[in-house]
């Protein structure tokens, strides 16, 4: 307990630094893009909004909406990744293992191709329904044993359900080949192209999810020491596992619905943050949220410029930025999970 003061001090510094990086990333994301907006216009767009100025409109519509989506989705994916890896005690697990991505993508493609979807906003709900359905299936299969949810089972069930949905999607895309091009960015992930008024009503749910995850963090720490220990300490492990599963599916489902299939954040950010603060979820969860958001914001900025006027899918950038760091951490050989 002696070291704890020092550790807390270090960690608080880390939190401050992380928040600073997040703020900076957000500003950069709003200020820079293909269409050049002078910096003073960026400032004015917030404090003296003029609906007739193209600069201001671009800041308010295009830029703000994508920065907010990137923030929200990055945080949600990273936190659900932390929870997923803890729940399954498998460092390879990512929210995608719950089948949410595959489920969402399948539903999108199905509805786009077979039923005629009339509005883009419908896509968000269709994706969320697909994600939840796949998640519920995986959870159901993974917890059929005597002692409720078992790590190995859920990982296997997730892989099977994901593959199943993925093959349905592939089938639809291969048969209706023109459809592939219409959902390509969706499959590859993207934070742009959503209007602000579509996003705002969804944000409170994400916020609530992150808050609950934070509230549960002491219990998650106990769960980490094993089911028996947790039960011995009087914890209702079954209830906790159900709660975690619902959180994971909810957070990842909403992310997928908002921004499509963005990989890597949910898998890698937890490992990155763990390398600095270890396995204490009171620190791990908030820091993962902050770094997930920052990484996605910065990736989005990069994605605008590499191939302008074309945009690189954001999932590509997260992977290319994240990989070297991830491999470095893997080599450093910090104990995981």
């Amino acid at each position: 307990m002696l070291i704890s003061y020092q550790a807390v001090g270090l960690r608080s510094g880390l939190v401050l630094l992380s928040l600073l990086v997040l703020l900076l990333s957000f500003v950069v994301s709003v200020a820079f893009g293909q269409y050049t907006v002078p910096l003073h216009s960026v400032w004015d767009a917030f404090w003296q909004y003029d609906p007739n100025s193209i600069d201001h409109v671009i800041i308010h519509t295009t830029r703000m909406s994508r920065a907010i989506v990137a923030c929200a989705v990055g945080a949600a994916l990273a936190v659900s990744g932390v929870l997923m890896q803890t729940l399954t005690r498998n460092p390879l697990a990512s929210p995608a293992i719950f089948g949410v991505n595959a489920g969402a993508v399948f539903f999108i493609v199905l509805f786009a191709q077979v039923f005629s979807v009339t509005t883009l906003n419908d896509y968000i709900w269709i994706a969320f329904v697909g994600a939840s359905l796949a998640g519920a299936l995986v959870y159901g299969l993974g917890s059929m044993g005597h002692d409720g949810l078992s790590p190995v089972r859920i990982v296997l069930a997730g892989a099977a359900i994901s593959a199943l949905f993925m093959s349905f999607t592939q089938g639809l895309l291969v048969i209706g080949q023109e459809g592939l091009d219409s959902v390509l960015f969706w499959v590859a992930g993207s934070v742009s192209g959503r209007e602000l008024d579509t996003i705002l009503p969804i944000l409170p749910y994400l916020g609530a999810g992150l808050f609950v995850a934070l509230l549960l963090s002491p219990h998650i720490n106990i769960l980490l020491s094993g089911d028996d220990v947790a039960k011995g300490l009087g914890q209702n492990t079954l209830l906790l596992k159900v709660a975690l599963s619902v959180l994971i599916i909810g957070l990842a489902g909403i992310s997928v619905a908002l921004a499509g299939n963005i990989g890597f954040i949910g898998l890698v950010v937890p490992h990155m943050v763990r390398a600095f603060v270890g396995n204490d979820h009171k620190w791990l969860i908030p820091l993962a949220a902050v770094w997930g958001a920052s990484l996605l914001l910065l990736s989005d900025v990069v994605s605008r410029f590499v191939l302008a006027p074309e945009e690189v899918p954001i999932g590509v950038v997260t992977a290319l930025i994240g990989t070297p760091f991830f491999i470095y951490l893997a080599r450093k050989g910090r104990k995981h999970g």
Partner: protein
Amino acid sequence: MSSFLKRCVERPILGVCLSFLLGLQGHALASNIVVSHAMGDTEVVSSQRVVTLYQGATDSTVALGITPVGVVESWAQKPIYHYLRDDLKGAEVVGLETQPNLEAIARLKPDLIIGARLRHEKIYGQLSQIAPTVMADTVYDFQRSLALVAEATGHQAEGEKRWQAWQARTADFRKQLSAQQKKWPLTASILNARADHMRIYLDESFPGAVLRDIGFTSPIPEHKGWGIKLKTKEALPSINADVFFVLFDQEDGAVQQNYDDWRQHPLWQVLKAPRNGQVYQVNFVNWILSGGILGANLMLDELSELYHLTPAS
């Protein structure tokens, strides 16, 4: 069993020898043609039963007055584009353009198969064992498709005539349009709305090539290639042009909504074409999916209607 194994090894060689022999025999009849194409030289004996394996080849074959016995499924208006349905009444659909069903092709006992290297290079060997096969390099070069089909089916004269008629038509249209417009040539952007992005087609695409033939110029001539996929509306200034031809699947509500989102954006409103009321919605089957001379003529028909011109036909 040993006989079978022997055949497995010998069959390809045998096949080659056989076709060579047949070829020689045909040659003696002095009625067959040697076609040079993307995969080499092929001797075509007859073209009574043609199978076409890409949309542009189907279009060109019909244009020459031949009904193929087998065609591949269309990209939209499945299984066959509306504009070709009447002419393709007797034709059988032999699967997808990307993976046509080899057994179905073999069952049709064709005497000529027309494909594209871009799509069918891997199955060229097997196709050649079914019937003499000729291949275009790509699928979007409608001039080459017409010439190849004409040569392989022995309709070279009709092919020439078709092409000259097309050139006469475009020349006439160009003359009338340049007289009508204050500014000529006009820059034209071919915009294709999708559910989650917008794309612009450039010179190395079917509509790009057709518009270049007619005389419209590219808004971004320095950019080569088939086109660009645009994700953010901030990129709108890069597609600025005198006229926009917009094409999309009108039956898809999400695509329609995405297009509406784009054209309501303040950046769209300041571009030249929208400001001057020069944004035209055109038929997306004719413009990007047909890939043949008939489709190109349908494009020209649409353009004539838009500009109230009457080029000779």
